[in-house]
């Protein structure tokens, strides 16, 4: 091993693998093209000041969502490659992916979709929406928020670097030992996996701390707990879970790293190691992780259901209690991921029953959404399509989950395609549909114009049809004995079903293409679709009180909250009286200054991570020292906030009042 370059040699570049090489070239060209485009338009200063170094929760939220969507394309490319390969690798057909390549693809698909698609998208929505809904100006720790984002981006970067330099893990998305131990996975793939997740995991823990503090300590006057919108409640639950679960992931991955790098014996076959310890630890994180993702998604659906039904959410308090019950019970079910471990009938029964119990509060939620819509004047905008699609599908996915929670059934279908169908069946309608609903719902708040409805609905139908085609046959294949992660399928009678699944994947590809086209089309026709009032959907929560896009400080004066549905109450009062509340006493506003700390720390952590993967120890030390130096330098700063002058605050606030008065006149003339 070279002292300068560690294990890194030219052999790490995949020149003999046409697919990896071509992808690398395309991605590098695309990045270079973007760079040239941004440079040619002189957008770097704008990006640097308004996004990269911004501590504004809205900008950070948008960056998270962009990161998530870009990684979605990567994760989906893996998915469609797998489906195409499965179709071609039946019976006599060899398929087109070698086993070691196929194994990397399914590992990368799972890792990316959970950690670098679902997580950034969900955290992105929490960032954008929670402070607005709480009626405040930013999160508790704005700079830390920026650091969290860049650490996530650093992890995503390393996963993508594995495509060009070296390889990715071939061990599945949770890297179970002993397969992931040095003896059986000597390459850098597992190291890429471990290091990328450690770096992004630190960012996620910091996000959890930040949002719990924000929700519990920073709310508008009068915004007591039982007046918070349900999305804030579900975000609270999700971030509590992050604080309680992600440190366990950090430990689990650190122990595996110690095994791999220093020859420890936590999970090895020899030396007294116990690989089942890894299963327990990783699922103590892994099961709450499911709820970290799906609870905020439930929050999005709650907002959508209430807004587009024109009614308060049915059973607000039961929704809150259901959320918090799920938050707690989610820590008592992890063993259902390995009933086959052999813990005995008693242990399995306890965890099986707990897993069924967690379905109860989820069922409460479904009824609440249904009763919210019942008797309402439902407006069928795109988010409602996703809401309905979700309710229709998710109940089925949940039922197969209850089935899997019965240990004897689980013994039969464990590790099968039935399981693969089940978790896609809950996570795509549960999380992905919610993300698309939220994207359509809050897009006008973020950018000041709505997305095209017609294309949005076309996208929904492609998703809906595509999902059903792509995953329902897997239930059957699972019952017929199909195990997951198979690189070759010997039974030729499965071919038609695999063809159906491939067609489903094409439909989903069409959905993604339509989403891109919808964005471009909506930007081009934005003048006709401006959201001039800041309240395009007749909303009920405080984010619709301010303009679209909101000013940096969100609210000129923090809103006073009286009762649930803070904004709806205020709006109805204004319509009734045909006047706004009296002009408050404006003050200059202090906001946190921009800082490049996050991006520089992420730079050093990426360097350090890359160095650890390739055993380049001097560079790893340099990365740690660099990150520490940035920390000290940042802590030394004297300027913490900048003041927005009162003239600017008043001018913006009066403009908003004028717009709202116009809207009020329009409403009163129409009634």
């Amino acid at each position, binding site marked *: 091993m070279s002292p300068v370059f560690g294990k890194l040699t030219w052999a790490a570049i995949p020149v003999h693998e046409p697919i990896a090489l071509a992808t690398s070239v395309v991605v590098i060209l695309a990045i270079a093209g973007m760079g040239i485009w941004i440079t040619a338009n002189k957008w770097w200063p704008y990006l640097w000041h308004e996004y990269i170094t911004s501590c504004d929760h809205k900008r950070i939220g948008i960056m998270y969502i962009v990161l998530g969507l870009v990684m979605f394309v990567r994760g989906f490319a893996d998915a469609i490659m797998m489906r195409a390969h499965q179709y071609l690798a039946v019976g006599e057909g060899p398929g087109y992916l070698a086993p070691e390549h196929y194994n990397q693809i399914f590992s990368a698909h799972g890792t990316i979709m959970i950690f670098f698609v679902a997580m950034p998208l969900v955290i992105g929505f929490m960032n954008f929406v929670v402070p607005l809904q709480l009626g405040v100006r930013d999160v508790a720790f704005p700079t830390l928020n920026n650091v969290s984002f860049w650490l996530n981006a650093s992890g995503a970067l390393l996963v993508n670097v594995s495509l060009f330099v070296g390889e990715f893990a071939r061990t599945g998305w949770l890297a179970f030992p002993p397969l992931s131990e040095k003896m059986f996975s000597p390459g850098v793939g597992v190291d890429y996996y471990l290091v990328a997740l450690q770096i992004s995991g630190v960012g996620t823990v910091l996000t959890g701390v930040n949002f719990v503090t924000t929700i519990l300590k920073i709310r508008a006057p009068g915004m007591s707990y039982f007046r918070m919108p349900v999305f804030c409640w579900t975000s609270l639950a999700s971030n509590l879970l992050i604080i309680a*679960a992600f440190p366990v992931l950090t430990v689990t991955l650190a122990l595996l790293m*110690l095994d791999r790098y*220093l020859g420890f014996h936590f999970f090895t076959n*020899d030396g*007294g190691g*116990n690989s089942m310890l890894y299963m327990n630890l990783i699922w103590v994180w892994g099961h709450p992780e499911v709820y970290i993702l799906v609870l905020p998604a439930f929050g999005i659906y709650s907002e959508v259901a209430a807004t587009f039904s024109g009614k308060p959410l049915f059973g607000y308090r039961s929704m809150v209690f259901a959320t918090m019950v799920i938050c707690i019970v989610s820590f008592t079910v992890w063993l259902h991921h390995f009933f086959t471990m052999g813990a005995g009938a008693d242990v399995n029964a306890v965890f099986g029953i707990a897993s069924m119990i967690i379905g109860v509060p989820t069922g409460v939620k479904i009824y609440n959404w249904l009763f919210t819509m019942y008797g309402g004047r439902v407006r069928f905008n795109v988010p409602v399509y996703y809401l309905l699609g979700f309710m229709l599908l998710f109940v089925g996915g949940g039922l197969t989950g209850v089935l899997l929670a019965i240990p004897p059934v689980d013994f039969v279908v464990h590790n099968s395609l039935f399981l693969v169908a089940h978790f896609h069946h809950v996570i795509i309608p549960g999380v992905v549909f919610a993300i698309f609903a939220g994207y359509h719902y809050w897009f006008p708040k973020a950018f000041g114009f709505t997305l095209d409805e017609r294309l949005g609905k076309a996208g929904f139908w492609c998703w809906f049809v595509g999902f059903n085609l792509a995953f329902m046959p897997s239930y059957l294949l699972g019952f017929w004995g199909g195990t997951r992660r198979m690189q070759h399928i010997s039974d030729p009678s499965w071919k038609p079903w695999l063809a159906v699944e491939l067609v489903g994947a094409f439909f989903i590809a069409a959905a993604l293409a339509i989403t891109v086209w919808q964005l471009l089309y909506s930007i081009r026709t934005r003048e006709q679709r401006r959201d001039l009032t800041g309240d395009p959907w007749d909303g009920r929560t405080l984010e619709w009180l301010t303009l679209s896009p909101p000013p940096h400080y969100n609210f000129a004066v923090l809103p006073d909250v009286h009762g649930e549905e803070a904004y709806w109450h205020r709006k109805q009062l204004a319509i009734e009286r045909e006047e706004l509340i009296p002009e408050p006493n404006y*003050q200059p506003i202090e906001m946190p200054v921009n800082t490049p700390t996050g991006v520089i720390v992420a730079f050093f952590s990426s360097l350090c991570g890359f160095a650890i993967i390739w055993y380049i120890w001097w560079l790893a030390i340099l990365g740690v020292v660099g990150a520490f130096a940035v920390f000290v330098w940042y802590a030394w700063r004297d300027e913490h906030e900048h003041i927005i002058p009162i003239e600017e605050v008043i001018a913006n606030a009066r403009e908003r009042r004028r717009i709202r008065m116009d809207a009020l006149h329009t409403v009163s003339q129409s009634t």
Partner: protein
Amino acid sequence: MTTEAATIGMTHSGSEDTGLGHRGPESKSIVVPYGFWLFVLSDIVLFSALFATYASLVHATDYGPTTNQLFSRTTAAWETAALLLSTFVCGLALIAAKRRNMMWTQVWLVATGLFGLIFLIFELREFVEFIESGAGPQRSAFLSSFFTLVGCHGAHVTAGLMWLGTMMAQIWAKGFREHILRRLLCFTIFWHALDIIWVAIFTIVYLIGTLP
């Protein structure tokens, strides 16, 4: 209107009293320690996973040395004394800082660091002794989990010492500013939390491990 309250949003009068959250955003002197407590909580979760690992591997000695053959209560007692004293003088430093007494603040912080260093030296000597006697972390799953649990605590103490150094430099260069005092408070929270974890290590690893 204090600048603190104005940072995130200004509280203003006239809102009704609902018992919880009616006052609007809390001031930074509440928010910062609160957030730091949550971070400490996440750290305690991290250690609880390491304790669980230790507990499930403590008998997996692979025919190698066991807890009774390795651990000495005397060393652990000295380590405990050093760490508890360190925390005590850390508390004194915070009191001195609240009185804006630069000299005593620095003296007590130096003492905090020295006791922390003494703790670390004891711990490293123990580690070296074990490794030299063939009981390194690669020997068995039990020793892997021992070195990781205790070493992780030691790594926290080391990080704390680095933090302490920058803290002292900041207080020296900038004086007792509001945000620097908040950081000092966070540091003491961190230092006390490491004590709590050490007490658990002392009990679970050293005391139980040396039972006859």
